[in-house]
């Protein structure tokens, strides 16, 4: 005979599961409803609206730095776009430069040269243990704002200028003969790639020999002979010219942009350096000893054994550093660079509608973060496949 004792419903896991979830949703709904009721009441009371209609209104304020044409007569939507582009620019350039500096510092941190090793360690510790915002205001107010005025700009062999307004450098511009030379240079690149492939796939030299010399030699030869044959220079140079109040021509980087970029790069590079060091150190000692045993040189060990394995460990934490840099670029408001957040605080103040404005900004940052993680996850998968 089977004794069947029914589990009372208050101890039945299935009932409990459903019940607790319903309860959780109910609590959330009540809390959300309470907050929403307060919000809509407060917004009505203060004449705030929830929509995004403000984006079509005239902005009416100047933005110091723009990548696309913008005037105060444009809409708030356009101003938002200008800020977004500025954020993307400083993050993009910052990520590239921070990676370079970070890798160099990370390798320096592992140097057998005691002095270089210590200097790298001190640099990393100072950067990691002081707030980024303090570094930014120091670089902007303590360094860039202390540069001489335009009149007495610092000058480096009449090419590079630095003053309170920013940094100015020459810009290459294509001249009429550029197209012809470009075809020639493209041909050179093609030949170089072909050479590279053929030589590095050669069964005897495979994987131990990099045809840097032959490939770059071919490229330089073809592109260089094209340059001389065409006659007049295919690339002109637009030099910055000192005007009465500011420089014209060339590439001008405002001191706000430069300070933000320098601050973000040197701060993030310290974190990237630690990531790189950790990745390299995580490669097993036996791998390196085995590589030595089969007769690889030190550079070959670095390139063929350490680097590919370290990369796998490095990519995920590197991704979060890139995300941090992009998010930290919002500190631009501390030094007056018109990035996404800074422009939108102005918009919020002018329209008096902070709620939709801040929502849109948060959504944009979120989208940027998700997009960056997506790209880096794809890259990560690509790197990880090499394992097999």
């Amino acid at each position, binding site marked *: 005979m089977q004794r069947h004792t029914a589990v009372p419903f208050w101890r039945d896991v299935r009932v409990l*599961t459903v019940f*607790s*979830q319903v309860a*959780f*949703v109910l609590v*959330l709904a009540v809390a959300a409803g309470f*907050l929403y009721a*307060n*919000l809509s*009441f*407060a*917004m009505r*009371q*203060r004449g*705030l609206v929830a929509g995004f209609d403000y984006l079509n209104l005239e902005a009416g304020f100047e933005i110091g730095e723009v990548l696309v044409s913008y005037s105060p007569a444009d809409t708030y939507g356009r101003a938002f776009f200008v800020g977004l582009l500025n954020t993307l620019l400083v993050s993009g350039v910052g990520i590239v430069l921070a990676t370079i500096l970070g890798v160099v510092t990370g390798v320096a941190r592992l*140097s*057998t*040269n*005691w*002095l*270089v090793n210590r*200097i790298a360690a001190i640099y990393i*510790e*100072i950067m*990691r*243990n*002081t*707030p*980024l*915002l*303090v*570094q930014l*205001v*120091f670089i902007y*107010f*303590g360094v860039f*704002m*202390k540069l001489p005025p335009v009149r007495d700009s610092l000058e480096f062999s009449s090419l590079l200028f630095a003053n309170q307004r920013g940094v100015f450098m020459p810009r290459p511009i294509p001249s009429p003969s550029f197209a012809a030379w470009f075809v020639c240079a493209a041909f050179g690149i093609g030949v170089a790639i072909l050479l590279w492939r053929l030589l590095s796939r050669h069964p005897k030299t495979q994987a131990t020999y990099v045809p840097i010399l032959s490939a770059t030699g071919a490229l330089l030869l073809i592109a260089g002979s094209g340059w001389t044959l065409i006659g007049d220079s295919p690339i002109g140079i637009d030099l910055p010219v000192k005007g009465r109040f500011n420089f014209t021509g060339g590439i001008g980087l405002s001191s706000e942009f430069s300070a933000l970029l320098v601050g973000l790069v040197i701060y993030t590079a310290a974190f990237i350096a630690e990531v790189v060091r950790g990745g390299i150190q995580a490669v097993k000692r036996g791998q390196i000893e085995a590589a030595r045993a089969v007769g690889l040189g030190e550079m070959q060990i670095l390139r063929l054994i350490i680097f590919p394995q370290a990369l796998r460990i490095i990519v995920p934490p590197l991704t979060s550093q890139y995300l941090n840099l992009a*998010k*930290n670029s*919002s*500190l631009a*408001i*501390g030094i007056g660079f018109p990035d996404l*957040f800074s422009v939108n*605080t102005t918009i*919020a103040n002018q329209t008096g509608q*902070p*709620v939709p404005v*801040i929502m849109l*900004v*948060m959504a944009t*940052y*979120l989208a940027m*973060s*998700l997009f960056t993680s997506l790209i880096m996850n794809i890259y990560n998968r690509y790197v990880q496949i090499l394992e097999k």
Partner: protein
Amino acid sequence: MTTAIETIGPPRTSVGVLGWLRKNLFSTWYNTLLTIVTLWVIWVVGSGLLSWSLTSARWDVITANARLFLIGPYPPDQVWRVWLVVVIVSVLFGLSGGVWGGTIRTFTMSLAGGYVTLAVLSLFVFPLGEGFVWLIANLVIVLAAYFVGRGRKAWQGWMIPLWLAAFVLTIVLLQGFAKNEWLPEVSTTKWGGLLLTFMLSVVSIVVSFPLGVLLALGRRSKLPVVRIFSILYIELVRGVPLITILYMTQIMLPLFLPGEIRIDNVVRAMVGMTLFTAAYLAENVRGGLQAIPLGQIEAAQAVGLNNALVTLFIVLPQALRMVIPAIVGLFIALFKDTTLVMIVGLLDLLGVGRSVLAQPEFMGLQIEVYIFVAAVFFIFSYAMSFASYRLEAALGVGKR
């Protein structure tokens, strides 16, 4: 017959100072070159910095505003309350150092050393008034508490509740009560300087701790609704910059609350930082939860514990112990991030620096002020990261 065997020592160039130099600085031609270039750079930068800081730098901007940098606009006649908080911290640090020993003892001793340094500085460099007496008193208290607590392992269990009680007491002491003669109310808008920086970071980490643990458990919950909510919260917060959250709490928190509840800027900033920290803390705790071997849970279930008890007595204690270094790391990040409240107009250490620079007599001294602010942050952050490193070694995280 034995012959004395002549032993030949290693070549002089491979041992001692010369050997060390050769091995570490001049091993190859490029290392030699690197060493020389680095030495030259150190010389140029170091001598320039030293001569600037000793001759042309005007450090009087720091000494003249010492009180502002430490406590901001906190009423001068109520400063004793801040000193009392320091006394509480001294007592607890002394006791903890005695009871636990190890890394914490190092910290207790560093704190005592800090008091001595500050006391000497206050005699010769910047006047702190009666602060000198308080510093000496604290020195005595921290040492006395250390000797009281030394070796009393039985008190270990009391330390965490004591610290939590001290946290509540600190807030009551600093805040005071409305219409109270002995402890008049000092609203949080009057908190500033280093005091505000500390209070912001400590309040945020303490309050976000339970939230973060709940979110971490929620993210691993079997209930889809709870899990999705936790994931959404964590990923939303981690995907946006802190400054947007601070801005949102500054502007929107008053809108979310019923009209009769009013909270000031500082509390709004605390709410923002807490909401932000909870998401990151949840991720750290989740790392610890995932590292618990399944056998632990199965064994606990086998002896008849239900799910709540397994989590409370088996999983959480082990997981939290494992993530202590990560939480210290998070606290350091939070401590540095408190500077962002300057952007929303609060007078934390950096905000005080900016307001000092607005005084006409101290215009243009940005380098001095910001170097000082950075140095203060560096001292505390470096000490904490050192502690985290030692703790990691002591707990044996990652080495098994």
